[in-house]
């Protein structure tokens, strides 16, 4: 039955070659921890991606209860934390996942850097990687405000003061992020929410597609 369905789709869309391009390739010995235990350093990138998937899922469930509004944001998080079944665990996963994603991404970057894996022909993928680094930091910065508690607002105040120091565009950048030149309030929260759940994920997915496409195209760099 499944085979028939597959053949029916394959006949029309030719999915087999696509499947082959994604999954049908050999993994070399030097990145396989089953052969050399030290090859575990090659796990960091994959684990970062795995945590990103967890972040997407847990974040989607958090938005079922979260309200991006200064009156209700904190109350909705408090409710989620204390009343909703498993709300505490989902929020904790999103919280700790954020930290772990940054740690894993940092380790992945160090692996690539110290192995000189960014050298020709992989310069472009390195640049995509640094862009991903910045996107992930932006996730951390915008997500920190969303619970709308004391630490969130006060840290955001400082963060926006730093953003203001950018030459020429500093003032505009701050207004763009906070919705007002001086006030940190309702508009700031909705903007950070929109950036955190729409703009950044869109950029993240696009860059990840490029990142993975280039890895498949170029293969993993050889052993040292």
């Amino acid at each position, binding site marked *: 039955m499944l085979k028939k369905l597959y053949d029916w789709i394959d006949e029309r869309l030719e999915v087999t070659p696509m499947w082959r391009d994604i999954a049908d390739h050999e*993994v070399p010995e030097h990145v396989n921890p089953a052969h050399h235990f030290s090859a575990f350093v090659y796990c960091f990138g994959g684990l970062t991606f795995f945590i990103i998937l967890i972040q997407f899922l847990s974040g989607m469930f958090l938005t079922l209860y979260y309200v991006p509004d200064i009156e209700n944001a904190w109350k909705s998080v408090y409710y989620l934390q204390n009343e909703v079944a498993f709300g505490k665990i989902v929020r904790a996963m999103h919280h700790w996942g954020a930290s772990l994603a940054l740690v894993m991404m940092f380790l992945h970057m160090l692996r690539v850097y110290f*192995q000189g894996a960014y050298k*020709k022909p992989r310069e472009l993928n390195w640049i995509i990687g640094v862009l991903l680094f*910045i996107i992930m930091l932006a996730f951390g910065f915008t997500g920190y405000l969303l619970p709308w508690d*004391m630490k969130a607002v006060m840290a955001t105040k400082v963060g926006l003061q730093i953003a203001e120091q950018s030459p020429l565009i500093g003032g505009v950048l701050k207004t763009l992020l906070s919705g007002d030149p001086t006030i940190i309030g309702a508009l700031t929260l909705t903007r950070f929410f929109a950036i955190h759940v729409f703009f950044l994920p869109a950029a993240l997915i696009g860059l990840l597609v490029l990142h993975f496409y280039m890895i498949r195209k170029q293969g993993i760099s050889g052993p040292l």
Partner: protein
Amino acid sequence: MKKGKNIKYVGDSRVPQDIDKNIPTDFSQYAGKTEPFYPSFLLKEWMVGAVFLVALLVLSATHAAPLERIADPNDTAYIPLPDWYFLFLYEFLKFPYASGPYLPIGAFVIPGIAFGALFLAPFLDRGPERRPLKRPIATGMMLLAIASIFYLTWYSVEHHDWEATKNQGKIVDIPGEDAPEIDVNADGYKLLVTYACTSCHGDKLNGGAAGPTLINLGLSSDEVTKIVKEGKGAMPPGLFKGTDEELKTLSDYISSLK
């Protein structure tokens, strides 16, 4: 499904085989033990992922995400603190040549140079060598960056008043739960209002922007007197300007609050 059915080969998705001095030898040149990605290697990745997920779940189940009291943007007494991964930058901006009139240097120039160098790493470090020890400049710069990030983070954690952070963020007004009933007609309560204790400890004495709760402290009257006289934490000594008799009434009242 029959293997190979309908397959149109779309070309090997590897780099061209042109040998360039700068390109390290491709792994296909090594007679190693390769393994198909699907299903053998993917299964191993799956297992690593499963172990990791269990660890994350245990962490999440035992350590809840922190939540402080609802934001009050006008509370100037609050000491701001970013999440741990921004601590090094926060600490860095306290250096004299990175703050005040030099803030643009600390907030823009230095991070700009750091990220700029990171972006341009493949174009700055162009040699054919890949081993860390054979590229001392690139390796040294990164080790220096890691050392400074670790040092600044450690310094920030070491010199921060975590007790104050814990207290200043405590949730005092739990939604759906009223503050404990207190006798506002007692002489002790009137003294607390008269001597402005309530401005920090709250009208309901359950804590406020700058002071902790006064309810159910479990202290004796004498111990309360001592704190009022000598101060504690953010509370300076000698705030209370009343007579000894009033102090006794006040201390008795506070120690009686349940």
